[in-house]
């Protein structure tokens, strides 16, 4: 496999979009656990987590607030070290995957640098990787097109709406064409309508680029609509209580949310979440 982050995108090839593509294992976690030592005791943010994500999959983590979704994503991204168990990303340790720039991370907030305009924000990782200027611009333009932000290159973050900012941050994560996309509630702060639109765009983008996506969300419809696999988590200690395959057809539109199949999956997710909650009180 070409490990260079700067290889040309392989648009529309490989895994057929949507369906459960039995590709290589990209993320493999075994008995993963993580505890935080805080002033008032130990927090078990993750406990005995087993997870397999294959190439081309769209996996969503769903669960109540504080159940460790962000923490799990951060462990995959080597922003946090697990205190127990093992994990590999693309066959190597997370730290190595990070230094190979294998993934793009979209944070819960846009996290754009206020002193850079949209274009310069998207080229930031490319500058850090040492790409020459012409290809930087080319990559950035293509990815801004992809998220429908062409024409806004010269705007500064504060001149954009929340949804546009989040799209710019997605373009930034895509700019160096990582094979893995880690997204932490990217649309959490947006209204329903914008969110629906971005969901459709994201799905299209995923179909076009054949990336592996790990996606954190609070919303059951969002998870069912986007995913090929839904991971249901529960808090205290943070753990996985159910993994639901979501075998809706590849070419989904928003209308699919009215279908019986969709509602059945959503129901299963809701049941799983409820079961997780009963541990609580």
């Amino acid at each position, binding site marked *: 496999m070409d490990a260079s982050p700067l290889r040309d995108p392989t648009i529309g090839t490989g895994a057929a979009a949507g369906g459960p593509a039995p590709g290589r294992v990209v993320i493999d976690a075994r008995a993963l656990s993580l505890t935080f030592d805080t002033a008032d005791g130990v927090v078990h943010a993750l406990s005995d987590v087993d997870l397999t994500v294959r190439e081309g999959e769209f996996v969503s983590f769903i669960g109540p607030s504080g159940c460790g979704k962000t923490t799990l994503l951060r462990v995959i991204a080597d922003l946090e070290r697990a205190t127990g168990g093992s994990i590999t990303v693309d066959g190597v340790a997370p730290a190595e995957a990070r230094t190979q*720039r294998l993934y793009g991370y979209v944070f819960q907030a846009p996290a754009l640098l*206020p002193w*850079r305009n949209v274009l310069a924000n998207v080229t930031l990782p490319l500058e850090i990787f040492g790409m020459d200027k012409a290809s930087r611009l080319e990559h950035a333009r293509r990815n801004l097109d992809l998220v429908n932000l062409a024409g806004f290159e010269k705007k500064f973050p504060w001149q954009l709406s929340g949804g546009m900012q989040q799209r710019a941050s997605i373009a930034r994560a895509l700019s160096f064409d990582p094979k893995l996309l880690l997204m932490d509630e990217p649309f959490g702060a947006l209204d329903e309508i914008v969110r629906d639109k971005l969901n459709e765009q994201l799905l299209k983008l995923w179909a076009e680029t054949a990336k592996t996506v790990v996606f954190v969300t609070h919303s059951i419809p969002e998870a069912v609509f986007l995913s090929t696999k839904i991971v249901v988590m529960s808090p205290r200690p943070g753990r996985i209580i159910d993994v639901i395959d979501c075998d809706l057809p590849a070419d989904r539109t928003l209308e699919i949310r009215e279908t019986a199949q969709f509602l059945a999956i959503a129901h299963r997710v809701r049941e799983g979440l409820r079961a997780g909650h009963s541990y609580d009180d």
Partner: protein
Amino acid sequence: MTIDAAIAPASRPRGPGLLARAFAGTTGPVVTIVAVLMVVWYAAAVWLNAPLVQSETPLSTAELVDATLALERPLLPAPHQILIELKKTVLDTPVTSKRSLVQHAWVTLSSTLTGFAFGALLGLLLAVAIVHVRSLEKSLMFWIVSSQTIPILAVAPIIIVVLGAIGVTGLVPKAIISAYLCFFPVTAGMVKGLTSPDRLHVDLMRTYDASPSATFWKLRVPASVPFLFTSLKVAIAASLVGAIVGELPTGAQAGLGARLLAGSYYGQTIQIWAALFAAAALAATMVGLVGALEGFVLRQMGTRR
């Protein structure tokens, strides 16, 4: 008057008439308050100086007022007397003359700027070191901060005398005092600025496996720019204070501090006030220039709306 000049470019909200607009903003109130202060000043000058007026014949009120505002060594000179003195020593005296206020201001300004340059540089370097070396942050920062709780200017005479004892006089000792006063605001401000990027941005750089130098130049430095200018404004004002005080203890021959000292020896109040006004003008100009540079840079960076 320097005060007006410095504050003129205030924002004026849109409104009907020019006057109404001025009074809805800051210009009108500032002008009014300055005018009131002027009136108070003249009244105080008359009141304070009246006992100094000597005359054999009893004076009428108008004559007395005139006399109080025309004394050679008044207790409080009237603003116009100061302006006349300023005109005399700035415009009507050749710059080469010892009596030229321009020359004195230049002497002070040159050590202010030298000290500022070195102090700001030192402050920057210290901040960068403190941000990068944890043991320095823990050990040095405490002492830098507590060094500021002592009245640093008390050290000024020693620096002048000690350096004089080993033959260093003139600009250098004053510049050292200025630099000493300058470095702290810059260090404190830049440590804050360089550590100001929030967790999210630091994590973002980490996901790119950015080297420490890339993180420094692309994240920490740009994030610290507003802090830099704020601290530079404080530093340059402090630098001027350092230069002036540095001229006091040895009875320096030139500089605004020397003018203050000489004026106080000989009771030349008008000369003191003229020197004070010159110092105020210098301070306002320098702070204003740094502020203008700040506005320019921040606009270039797009962070100022």
